[in-house]
């Protein structure tokens, strides 16, 4: 206890290490938050879900904090659902025995400076045989009425207003999501369209042909900004991947580092204690391992066998066992082996295993700690590297996969910088956090470096 | 003071460490005459090696205070800048055989070249330097064919001789020997001491010998300085220091030397040598002194005795 306290006191001498500890603390907190608030299965399900879950989310929306840098307020997403929104006025009148009108008046207030990227109207109807029909009209604050179109409505119908060609032609070939929300006088070719702020209404005039037939509508005006992290090309909230990427990255880095350092360490100890053919074999295996290219093999494994992150973890550890650090551990162990207390232990009949595990390894163990900590970011980035090559885990949301999605979808060309920057910053934080602590530890545990 | 070859006045070397300021050398003054050998005696960690480094300005990186006067033939070498010091003092006037001389040889330069190097560096005479190196190596008893060897091919005793040869090659006025024999076996020790004695007889060179080994140092010493906690506590001619020391510390030190064929109880000094970081106030030896009294809470000056000896102890104060 006292030892740990002293250790942290010593670590606190290094300002960079304090920064590192803060960063790692932050990441651990994020990881804990992710695991507690969003269970593993749920996170995977959400991340793999399609339009049925993410339909109401904007595509490639920037994070809301981008408002801080934008001159205009970025449009948030507006969803008006006739099933849940109390402002929607429903009117129904009997026309004939089976025929009824079903009108929905959906008001909303548009106050942003920016135009939305997309507007969708989801219509759903209940019926037995005869599908209801509807006519959609857009009412602007200045009293204009624009007929959007008519439709026969099935159980689930999507009217993609923003990409409707007929509507676009009617609007003088201006994208509907702009034309419908702009001040009409700014729609000239040489002018920058401006938003007409105010109360809008979408009126759905429906006609049902059966007794219990009903009609419902949901208008989604997709904003330009969403949440803390924005959304990706599949409308998914990137936050999920950022949150869940944290525990995965930390666990992967930590386990890979523990696995490879510990095994390497034990093997080096055994080799140098027993010497002879055991040692020779270990040395040869190390040399063979040094010829094998790690990353290509991982790529091979990812392409040919499995992309499961835990399987990859196993291969990483396997390739790390006979790493070149065996040689440096070995030379340290060879020195320890000659020390009198080992000789004494041998003399009074301690077993080989006891000497290796209880006498030799603890002596050098401190040297392990810094190299172990500095290894963690290497593996965190290794996972990201594989993901960037498209070999990320098929199920899990990870930072690397977000980066890969962004890269594959040309985020850098199209200007979706947040998509790249967010996972990149997290990766960078993890890398720098562990690296700074590792460097400080190296100075603490390596007396030769202490004064340097 | 002031008419010897080397006069050191109030030399002080303090350095910073993570635990505080180390007062390695604190107000040390002494005088060394030509062809004289002065021995600095003291326990490990009393600042002897730091004293050697302070005289030759071989300072560590974390120096806090470095002050005092070091007069060599009347000029204060403390006033020289680093480049002047390098050109005028190092190995021209003063050389040293460092502690662990075995590791102080360059592993990849041949012995002969290394011994000749100071002459080449300071005088630029290649051929002459080589001849001088050969002579001096011969004088300290290194076989000539060793000149083409590398340090790792030599035994410890041979390396020590090479280090001594290297210190003598430019015939400096003062040679500082820092524990020149501590890592060697008894026979080799005797051998080396004989070499040094012979050199002292043959040349005009003065020696400063730093050691904790009383018996070997007695061979060479003309005068002895007892050092305790970074300070000189007794300064005396060798004969009287070894036979009848004045300071309680020196007395204890002498009593701890084993002698053959004499049944005498070996003494030791209770307690630990004081830390140089927070030395005791007053007399620094007081906490371990068997004869301390009230006065000892004040720091004693270095009293000059009528017989020419100096002692830093209230017992001898007027």
């Amino acid at each position: 206890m006292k030892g740990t306290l002293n250790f942290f006191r010593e670590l606190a001498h290094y300002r960079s290490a304090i920064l590192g500890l803060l960063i790692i603390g932050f990441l651990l907190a994020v990881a804990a938050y992710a695991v507690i608030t969003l269970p593993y299965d749920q996170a995977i399900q959400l991340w793999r879900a399609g339009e049925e879950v993410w339909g109401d989310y904007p595509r490639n929306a920037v994070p809301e904090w981008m408002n801080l840098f934008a001159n205009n307020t970025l449009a948030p997403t507006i969803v008006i659902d006739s099933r849940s929104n109390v402002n929607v006025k429903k009117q129904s009148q009997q026309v004939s025995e089976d025929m009824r009108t079903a009108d929905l008046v959906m008001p909303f207030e548009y106050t942003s400076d920016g135009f939305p990227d997309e507007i969708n109207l989801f219509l759903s109807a209940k019926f037995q045989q005869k599908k209801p029909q509807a006519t959609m009209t857009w009412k602007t604050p200045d009293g204009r009425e624009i007929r959007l179109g008519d439709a026969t409505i099935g159980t689930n119908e999507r009217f993609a207003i923003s990409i409707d060609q007929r509507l676009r032609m009617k609007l003088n070939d201006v994208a509907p999501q702009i034309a419908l929300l702009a001040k009409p006088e700014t729609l000239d070719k040489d002018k920058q369209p401006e938003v007409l702020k105010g109360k809008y209404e979408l009126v759905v005039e429906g006609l049902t042909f059966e007794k219990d037939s009903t009609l419902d509508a949901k208008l989604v005006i997709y904003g330009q900004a969403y949440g803390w992290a924005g959304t990706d090309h599949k409308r998914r909230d990137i936050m999920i991947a950022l949150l869940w990427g944290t525990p995965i990255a930390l666990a992967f880095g930590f386990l890979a580092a523990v696995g490879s350092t510990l095994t390497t360490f034990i093997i080096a100890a055994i080799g140098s204690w027993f010497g002879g053919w055991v040692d020779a074999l270990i040395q040869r295996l190390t040399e063979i391992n040094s010829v094998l290219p790690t990353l290509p093999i991982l790529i091979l494994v990812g392409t040919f066998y499995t992309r499961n992150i835990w399987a990859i973890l196993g291969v990483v550890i396997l390739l790390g066992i006979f790493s070149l650090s065996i040689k440096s551990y070995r030379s340290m162990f060879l020195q320890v082996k000659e020390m009198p207390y080992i000789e004494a232990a041998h003399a009074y009949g301690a077993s080989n295993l006891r000497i290796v595990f209880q006498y030799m390894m603890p002596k050098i163990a401190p040297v392990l700690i810094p190299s172990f900590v500095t290894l963690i970011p290497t593996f965190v980035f290794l996972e990201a590297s594989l993901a960037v090559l498209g070999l990320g885990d098929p199920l899990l949301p990870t930072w690397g996969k977000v980066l890969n999605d962004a890269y594959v979808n040309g985020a850098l060309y199209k200007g979706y910088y947040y998509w790249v920057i967010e996972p990149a910053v997290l990766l960078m934080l993890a890398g720098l956090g562990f690296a700074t602590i590792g460097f400080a530890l190296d100075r603490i545990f390596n007396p030769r470096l202490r004064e340097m | 003071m002031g008419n010897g070859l080397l006069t050191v006045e109030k030399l002080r070397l303090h350095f910073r460490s993570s635990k505080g300021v180390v007062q390695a050398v604190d107000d040390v003054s002494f005088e060394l005459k030509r062809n004289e050998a002065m021995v600095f005696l003291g326990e490990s960690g009393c600042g002897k090696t730091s004293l050697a480094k302070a005289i030759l300005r071989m300072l560590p990186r974390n120096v806090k205070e470095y002050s005092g006067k070091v007069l060599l033939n009347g000029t204060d070498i403390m006033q020289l800048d680093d480049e002047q010091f390098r050109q005028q003092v190092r190995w021209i006037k003063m050389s040293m055989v460092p502690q662990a001389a075995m590791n102080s040889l360059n592993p990849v330069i041949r012995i002969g070249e290394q011994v000749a190097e100071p002459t080449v560096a300071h005088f630029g005479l290649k051929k002459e330097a080589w001849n001088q190196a050969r002579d001096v190596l011969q004088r300290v008893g290194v076989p000539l064919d060793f000149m083409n060897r590398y340090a790792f091919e030599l035994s410890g005793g041979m390396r020590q001789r090479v280090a001594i040869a290297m210190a003598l090659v430019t015939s400096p006025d003062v040679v500082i020997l820092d524990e020149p024999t501590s890592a060697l076996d008894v026979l080799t020790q005797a051998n080396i001491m004989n070499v040094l004695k012979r050199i002292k007889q043959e040349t005009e060179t003065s020696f400063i010998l730093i050691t904790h080994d009383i018996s070997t140092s007695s061979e060479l010493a003309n005068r002895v300085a007892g050092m305790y906690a970074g300070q000189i506590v007794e300064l005396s001619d060798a004969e009287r220091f070894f036979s009848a020391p004045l300071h309680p510390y020196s007395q204890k030190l002498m009593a701890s030397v084993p002698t053959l064929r004499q049944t005498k109880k070996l003494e030791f000094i209770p307690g630990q040598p004081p830390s140089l970081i927070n030395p005791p106030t007053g007399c620094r030896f007081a906490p371990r002194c068997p004869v301390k009294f009230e006065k000892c809470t004040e720091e004693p000056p270095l009293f000059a005795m009528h017989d020419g000896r100096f002692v830093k102890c209230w017992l001898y104060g007027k």
Partner: protein
Amino acid sequence: MATGTVQEVTRPKAGIHIPETLTRVLKYVLFRGAALFATVVIGVYLTVLIANMGGYLDTIRLAQIREQVGASILGDPTLQQLPASQLRERIDEQVAVEMKRLRLDQPFFVRSIDYLTDALTLNLGRAEFISSDSGSRQVRLILVERMPSTLLLSATSNLFLFFTAVFVALFLSRHYGSWLDRIVIAMAPTSAVPAWFYGIFLILIFASILHVLPFGGMVDAPVPETLSAYVTSLLKHMILPVSALVLHSIFIGIYNWRTFFLIYSSEDYVEMAKAKGLTSRTIERRYILRPTLPPIVTQFAFTLIYLWQGAIILETVFSWPGLGRLLYQAISLFDVPVIVGNVVLIAYLLVASVFLLDIIYALLDPRVKVGGGERRS
């Protein structure tokens, strides 16, 4: 290292022990060479096994052949009238011929040994999908074609890095504790971030936002006709990937060398050299650089070896047409000959350099004798 005679304490006088020394040297070289060659053999065989998925890839290949043959026969209008059974026979026949040609009728073990001997004799064979720009399927040609791009990129950055790092570190070890030194220490952990990662940031800043440098590739799309225009375009494309590589390792490089020099300059013999009154230039040259030359040369040699190993992800991120990207392409296309060829090339270079290094080491460091046992660390 390899076994050998016990290190001799005294240097044998010239002319006396020559025959003995010579045989010892020869024995050592042979033994070491054999051991290293065995290393290559096993390493390459493992690669062959992994790259063929232990033979499983053949099943995939077989299915592909069947599909191709089937498509070509069924799509042939002259054969349409034939009854189905005959068509199937036709297909089977064709598949068998194809299998024979590719030696797929042999058991995998036999073929894996074939692959191994071919690889070791640098008979790298034909690629299955990838072809060189000149249209050749020869793996050797493909590799040779990609080599210059990789070499250009990695040699520029690594040679720059190596020499800058060593010289700056030497300077810093003299100016220990200066502000520049502190900056380097503080920046050293940034090397935990891989080069391709800096690449993405650089692309973001200089290509996406500022539009001053290209996103990737090696030269502009219509290849410039004049030499000067070509070189300018090439240089422009090199700036970002080279900067990414440099950013990634410059600080850790300087930091490591600096620590290395500091450790060596606190050796007793350096202290002694200072006491001897040697100039700091002499001390640096004879007492710091000279004894540390063997590790510096080793490091340099390894720098040279890894020049050949293209940076896979960096080249992919920058669409740089080098060996690294080739390897990635080969893997995604299951083009085993190209994969194995790439790995064999690097294994050979690596092992050959290790072998050479052993000899260089012995020449540079008198403490290490050829035929002597352990290297002193």
